[in-house]
């Protein structure tokens, strides 16, 4: 993003809250606080060091207020920008700017959702749109299904290729002890699962879980003295193309094209330089669209690209190494979890799913119905 300095800040702490189906009575702010406590422990900073707070959730109208009250802090910098699941990538860019300008020294980005415990309808307000609601789109699934129909029509993408995305995610999830899904999945099982909105069965669609987490950012000088090696923010990019699917200009070309280009430009890197790829996989078509739009394969080739285990463990390109929103966790807005996994991979602490020698990672967030796109590129000390 123009105006932001490459490696102007580093992520020094990262942690999930409890995931899956959390203890009864916990709320979204509890999970943010739990994530913050764990992320601060991860880097060795204390709550008293935090003077920047960024958060978003659909379960609290003024989550910034609720979280400040809960933590007992009055931060110098606060931001609760909410643009869907990619909000946390936007927060990274905002935190980078705030740290560079001296608005704060230590910024925490937090998320929490109890979507599984309270039910999807309770977790977010249903909005009435007189130009869409009469047609009973089951949102967001119907919107992404329309994009998939277009991709299949233009490029010959098949349901089997979509299913290959879900199968690869499941294979990665089986290497992640924190993942919700614990059993193998085959292409045939994806195709035979309950149809939700053609071409998607329930296995083409992300999980509904509880979960939260936090990451901690600070300036590079301070980052070097903390517990874990700093993971530098090398690139940020963002793009908003629409809010509702009926206003998306081209259903096979997302804002990731622009957000990716901006992030690559700031990082001075290209797709070939990226070791680990974390993409917002709310639906199987997302992974295919973002692989194309972020330059990992040509436009229209995404379906063929994901065949044959290319993005699965031991494949050519490690994609969604935690098991993704499809098989690891997806508590309403998933963006923060992509950043947490990218940090762990570049630190080299991802255990059985570690990509050997990973020095760079891309964490790409998506919000709404392919509406907001934000790309973050991270790197270790060797990349700075």
């Amino acid at each position: 993003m123009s105006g932001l300095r490459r490696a102007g800040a580093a992520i020094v702490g990262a942690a999930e809250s409890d995931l899956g189906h959390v203890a009864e009575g916990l709320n979204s702010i509890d999970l943010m606080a739990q994530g913050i406590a764990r992320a601060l422990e991860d880097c060795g900073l204390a709550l008293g060091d935090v003077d920047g707070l960024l958060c978003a959730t659909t379960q609290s109208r003024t989550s910034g207020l609720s979280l400040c009250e809960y933590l007992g802090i009055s931060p110098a910098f606060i931001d609760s920008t909410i643009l869907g699941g990619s909000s946390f990538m936007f927060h990274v860019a905002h935190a980078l700017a705030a740290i560079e300008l001296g608005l704060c020294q230590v910024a925490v980005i937090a998320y929490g959702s109890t979507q599984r415990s309270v039910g999807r309808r309770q977790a977010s307000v249903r909005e009435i749109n007189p130009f869409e609601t009469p047609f009973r789109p089951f949102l967001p699934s119907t919107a992404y299904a329309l994009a998939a129909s277009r991709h299949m029509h233009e490029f010959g993408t098949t349901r089997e290729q979509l299913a290959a995305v879900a199968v690869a995610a499941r294979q990665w999830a089986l290497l992640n002890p924190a993942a919700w899904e614990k059993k193998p999945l085959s292409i045939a099982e994806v195709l035979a699962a309950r149809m939700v909105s053609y071409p998607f069965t329930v296995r083409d669609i992300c999980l509904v879980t509880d979960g939260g987490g936090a990451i901690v950012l600070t300036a590079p000088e301070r980052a070097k003295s903390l517990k874990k090696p700093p993971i530098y923010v090398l690139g940020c990019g963002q793009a908003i193309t629409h809010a509702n699917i009926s206003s998306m200009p081209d259903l096979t070309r997302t804002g990731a094209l622009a957000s990716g280009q901006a992030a690559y430009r700031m990082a001075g890197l290209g797709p070939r330089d990226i070791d680990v790829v974390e993409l917002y996989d709310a639906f199987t078509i997302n992974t295919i669209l973002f692989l194309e739009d972020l330059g990992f394969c040509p436009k229209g080739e995404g379906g063929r690209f994901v065949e044959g285990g290319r993005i699965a463990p031991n494949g050519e390109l490690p994609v969604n190494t935690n098991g993704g929103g499809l098989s690891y966790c997806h508590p309403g807005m998933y963006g923060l979890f992509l950043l947490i996994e990218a940090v762990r991979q570049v630190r080299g602490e991802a255990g059985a799913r570690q990509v050997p020698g990973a020095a760079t990672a891309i964490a790409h967030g998506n919000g709404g119905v392919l509406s907001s796109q934000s790309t973050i590129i991270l790197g270790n000390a060797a990349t700075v």
Partner: protein
Amino acid sequence: MADLSQSPLAIYQAHLDKGELAYQWSPSAGKAVFYPRLLCPHTGSTHLEWRRSAGLGTVYATTVTHPPQGDPYNVALVDCDEGFRLMSRVEGIAPEAVRIGMRVRFRVHRPGGEAPAYPVFVPLEAAP
């Protein structure tokens, strides 16, 4: 400037009540605008004209949504010939028989009761 007496939505709805599909035209952009609004998203101009669509279009994207209860139904995006796109459904054929590229014709659907009328489409060949 005087306050508005009618919202863009109300004008659109009044056309539908008469069986017409209305859209806006932005002279400054030379483009159609849909959904109806107060400002042209291409130029920022507040001068938008109302036009009546001929009601002919092409299916741009289509899906069959399966509700937890009840029959599966079509949801489609239709590109009208005047250059605007809207969400709708194609009726009169099986929902899975709707194809991208299919030529369709508008007709008004009146759900009855308090629910406002809305535009649906039928395949051009089957239209009366």
